[in-house]
Each structure stands twice: as structure tokens, then as C-alpha cells.
């Protein structure tokens, strides 16, 4: 099985400029691409047998001022799972849609747009709200969004009467 992975990684390295390769678990490879290469790379990988896109998600690396898009691809024939990753600018998060390669990505892109604010050019549906309704703040899964403050502001907590006392005095 390791031969298959090695051969595949060699093929990819020959074709594209890889920013990094890692083996986080058994039968799992993570490949980091530059943003320019990612669409060609995905098309190549799909042709090589990774026909299922399990997940498209995003990680907010706020310290680097970058978003990382992660595509989890799976090959049912040999059971090898790929993490294809790329980084995009956090200030201008724009990415070209991959729905022409993996049509199943349509709603994942919408999900990422809603929770991170990444815009997917070429997927007009991705701009609509899906899970949230009348959202009035920055996209909620960004690291600079403070969920507790938002929750406290919008949904006031129940006020309890002090019903026990300690040595220091009445406690809430």
C-alpha cells in the first residue's frame, strides 16, 4: 500500500510544485499546493482515482493572516485519503469555484462562504445564506468573532437571585 502512496506522491511532485507533503495517519497524505496550481492539481487527482470529495472546509490562520482551504478526497479503490490544502489571503478571500471538478462541492462552498466569508467565484449560489438567518455580524467561524460576547448581547441570560451565601458574602 505504501508503494501506491509513494508512486502517487512522486507523480504529483513531478507535475506540480508542492509546498509540502505530510503523512498524518495511516493511508492519509496531505499535499500543500500553491493557489495557482490547485485547480489543475484537483483535476489531475480526480483523474487518478480520487473521485469522492468528502469535505471542503476552511481553517482560519489569523496569525499568518491567511485562510487555509482543505479538500478531503477519497479513493474507494485503494482507500487512500488525501488532504489537499492551499492558503489564500485573509484580507481578500477570493477563490475560484471547484464545482466544475467536483459538483458535490456546491453546498460546501456555500457553507464556507457563510462561516468564513470566502468568496467562490463562479458559484453564484454560494453567496446566499444557508444556515444562519438575518445574520448581522462578521462570519461566525472566523477567529476574531467572539461568540460569547455576541450571545450575551443578543440573548440576555437568565438573572438568578442570590440564594446562598459564603463567608465572603452573598454569591451570585
Amino acid at each position, binding site marked *: 500500500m505504501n508503494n501506491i502512496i509513494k508512486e502517487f506522491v512522486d507523480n504529483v511532485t513531478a507535475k506540480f510544485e508542492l509546498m509540502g507533503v505530510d503523512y498524518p495517519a495511516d493511508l492519509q497524505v496531505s499535499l500543500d499546493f500553491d493557489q495557482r496550481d490547485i485547480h489543475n492539481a484537483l483535476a489531475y487527482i480526480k483523474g487518478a482515482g480520487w473521485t469522492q470529495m468528502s469535505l471542503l472546509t476552511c481553517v482560519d490562520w489569523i496569525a499568518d493572516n491567511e485562510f487555509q482551504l482543505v479538500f478531503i478526497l477519497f479513493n474507494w479503490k485503494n482507500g487512500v485519503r488525501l488532504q489537499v490544502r492551499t492558503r489564500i489571503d485573509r484580507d481578500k478571500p477570493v477563490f475560484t469555484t471547484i464545482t466544475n471538478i467536483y459538483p458535490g462541492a456546491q453546498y460546501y462552498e456555500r457553507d464556507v462562504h457563510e462561516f468564513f466569508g470566502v468568496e467562490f467565484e463562479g458559484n453564484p449560489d454560494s453567496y*446566499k*445564506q*444557508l*444556515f*444562519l*438567518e*438575518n445574520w*448581522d*455580524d462578521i462570519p*461566525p467561524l472566523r477567529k476574531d*468573532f467572539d*461568540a*460569547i460576547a*455576541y*450571545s450575551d448581547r*443578543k*440573548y*440576555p*441570560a*437568565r438573572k438568578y437571585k442570590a440564594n446562598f451565601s459564603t463567608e465572603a458574602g452573598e454569591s451570585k
Partner: protein
Amino acid sequence: MSKKERAVAKRKKKWDGISNFFRANSIWMLMYCTGCCAIELPQAMTSKYDMERLGMGPMATPRQADVILVTGYLSVKTLRRVIYAYEQMGEPKYLVAFGPCTINGGIYYDAHPVIKSLDQYLPIDVYIAGCMPKPEAVMNGFQDLIDMIKRKEANGWRKYQENKEWYRENQIHALGELRIKDEFHE
């Protein structure tokens, strides 16, 4: 109060007692489950615990239902629809809240889409404890509701009528807008 008015009030009280007796023994619950506590409702409804022993049955439309069950946490999107369904129900109507999430947010106290205490938005008659409440607890809660109706204590709907502005203000604060928009996909 004149003699005639007193007689009317007395008759009304008597009539309330009779109608409450019948209400308490045939409760239609709205078939709408909002959160995770709903997973124990099928157990309470079917063979093992059999809710119909208490005279309770499911009802498909809010207009014919007597009780709405708020089974667990409410995201704002659901709350908007629950308010809509609750206001459609004919009076008298009762609301049973399940789990800690309806009291103070429970495990979702810090979640951005989940409200914290339901009683600011809708009046609650019975709370059922547990995360999630076991079917025994659910049955016990329903029995409590029945007893409260018989004792004329389940008056949440009256409270809602009388303090509608206060409830409305809280609802607007949390939801922004009460109207349900359906254009999300267009």
C-alpha cells in the same frame, strides 16, 4: 359589580372548571419537535410508555393543537418558527419546555445561534428536567401539565396575552425581525 355581572362571573368560573376537566383529559400535542430531546418522544409515544394512556395524541396542525413541545435548545431560526406556530394555536394553549437548554442555554450557553432562556420569548407552563429527559420524566411532565390544567394553574397563554408587548420586545431584540422570509434559495 352588579348582581347580574356576579352571576355571569360565577357561571363562567363553573364553565371553566368543566371545560378544563375535558381539556385535561384530551390533550393534542403539536407534532413539532425542535431539538435533540425529541429523540425520546417516539419512545414516550409508542408501545412502551404509550402517551395515549394520558389521553394525549399527536396533532398535525397548530390550529387544532393544545400543547406545543419545545424539545431542547432553540436556534434563532427555529425560535422564529416556534413563535409563528405558537401564535397560530387556538387558546387555551400550553407550552412544555424540555431540558436545561430552555432554562439557561445549557451546554450551548456560548453558542452564537442559540437563545438562552426561552421564558423571555414565550410563556412556559412546565419544565421537564434532564439532558435528555428520559421517557419516564417526559410522562411525568405531561402528568404535571394535566394536573395543572385541572387546577387552573396552566395560565401561560393568559400571561402571553397580557404581557404581549414585553414578549414582543424581547423577541425583536433577539431575532431582529419576526417575519419568516422564504427567499433564501432564490
